[in-house]
């Protein structure tokens, strides 16, 4: 997989402005709490894993910080190219959509939620480029071919519809679609969740490589601690809507401090 040089390591200097800052974020659904008082910063080049069992508030948090769901209270600030660090929900609808289109990516667990199933694989990857205002079809086709190659898809199938690809291939098309426009922050919701374990490993390696090379920030939600260990630099552990522990991935997994994290780690089956 590793074919060319990674860019010079980017975590050398202490980044001063986070790409995303969440402050005291709370989301309630009537009497039910989605997530409560969540605060963290994420910097470029970092992969942050959000782990916890189902119902712990992972997806609520992900939807709020990706600008899709307005929080009940608290702030989500994104370091936009245009305005610097700005509260996502104070932006105009047009600016927020532009931000989501140009600077963010969102990889869904189910590729069918993130792909247009009625247009070709190539068109799925080229569409974000058109959204950026690109109009030169030859160039866009070349970029699309480059990205489909990066995710190890057979480019002879560029004009096939996503429905004719396997689940693992669909997921790779979705990943290409979410990286092609050069986003600065990509959200991933259980990106390898529905995949065969044999495909998972290859996909994880590819993701890791692409992230390292392009210096983007990634927030990945997963309930799979093995995926978290291989992909994330640091972890946020959630339970019942609260963040119970944060830290460097191997510190959280090797020496968990909170009772819930200890339970989570000790419950993993060894093969």
């Amino acid at each position: 997989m590793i074919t060319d040089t990674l860019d010079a390591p980017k975590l050398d200097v202490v980044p001063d402005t986070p790409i995303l800052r969440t402050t005291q974020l709370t989301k309630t659904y009537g009497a039910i709490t989605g997530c409560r008082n969540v605060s963290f910063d994420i910097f470029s080049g970092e992969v942050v894993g959000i782990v916890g069992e189902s119902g712990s508030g992972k997806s609520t948090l992900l939807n709020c910080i990706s600008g899709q769901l307005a929080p009940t209270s608290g702030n989500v600030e994104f370091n936009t190219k245009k305005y610097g660090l700005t509260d996502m929900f104070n932006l105009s609808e047009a600016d927020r959509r532009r931000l989501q289109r140009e600077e963010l990516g969102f990889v869904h667990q189910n590729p069918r939620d993130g792909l247009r199933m009625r247009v070709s694989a190539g068109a799925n990857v080229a569409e974000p480029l058109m959204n950026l205002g690109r109009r030169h079809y030859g160039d866009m086709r070349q970029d699309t071919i480059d990205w489909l190659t990066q995710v190890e898809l057979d480019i002879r199938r560029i004009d096939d519809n996503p429905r004719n690809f396997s689940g693992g291939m669909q997921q790779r098309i979705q990943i290409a679609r979410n990286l092609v426009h050069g986003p600065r922050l990509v959200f991933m919701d259980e990106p390898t969740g529905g995949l065969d374990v044999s495909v998972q490993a290859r996909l994880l390696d590819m993701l890791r490589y692409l992230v390292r090379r392009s210096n983007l920030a990634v927030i990945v939600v997963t309930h799979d601690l093995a995926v978290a260990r291989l992909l994330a630099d640091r972890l946020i552990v959630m339970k019942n809507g609260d963040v119970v522990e944060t830290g460097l991935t191997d510190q959280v997994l090797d020496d968990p401090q909170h009772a819930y994290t200890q339970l989570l780690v000790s419950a993993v089956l060894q093969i």
Partner: protein
Amino acid sequence: MSNQVMIEVENLEKHFTLHNAGDAHIPVFTNLSLHVNAGECVVLSGVSGVGKSTLMRSIYGNYLPTGGSVRVRHKGEMVDITTAPPFQLLDIRRHTLGYVSQFLRVIPRISTMDLVMQPLLENGVDAEDAGERASEILELLQLPRAHWDLPPATFSGGEQQRVNIARSFAIDFDVLLLDEPTASLDAANRERVIKLIERALARGTAMIGIFHDEDVRNVVATRFFEVSKFAAHEPA
């Protein structure tokens, strides 16, 4: 470079609290201080369970000490591992602080060659040099060339161990933590690893190691450190 202090462990204390076992409190060590200079290989001694690996992991930052500090010289400055923010700790691990464990834990289905090249690429070495460097070290560790394009999952214990060693010694780390790197190796391969350690020592690398093999221990150690002297006891 020589005689410069590279690792400063001060008044380190570690205990574990197991919340799901009735909040069991397991004390490991307390008031532990250890300084290691460039070109030194300090071998930890003490019976099994005394906290040798716990000390190593506290220095690497995957265990969170209960008290005290662990400072490592990174890019000329002493940085406290216990308080460094995650991105700085990752930077320290990428460039300064290497760890050879007994177990190879990597993404499955990745070829041995790619696995050994990976830390080099992450250090900014270009692909061609990384490939050369990786070949050189795999050659030195006598891992059969036919294995290089295979993922190590099906390798023997000793072969996996050598892939692990190759990954860590491909980079000239200033500080190396060796947790039984020779555990599952035969005599000839043990010799090769000793050569690598001696070469790193000559270069001025500061090392802390755990070796159960007495022959290896006596050859590589520049001094011994008895961890049991700092054993913590359950408060009465």
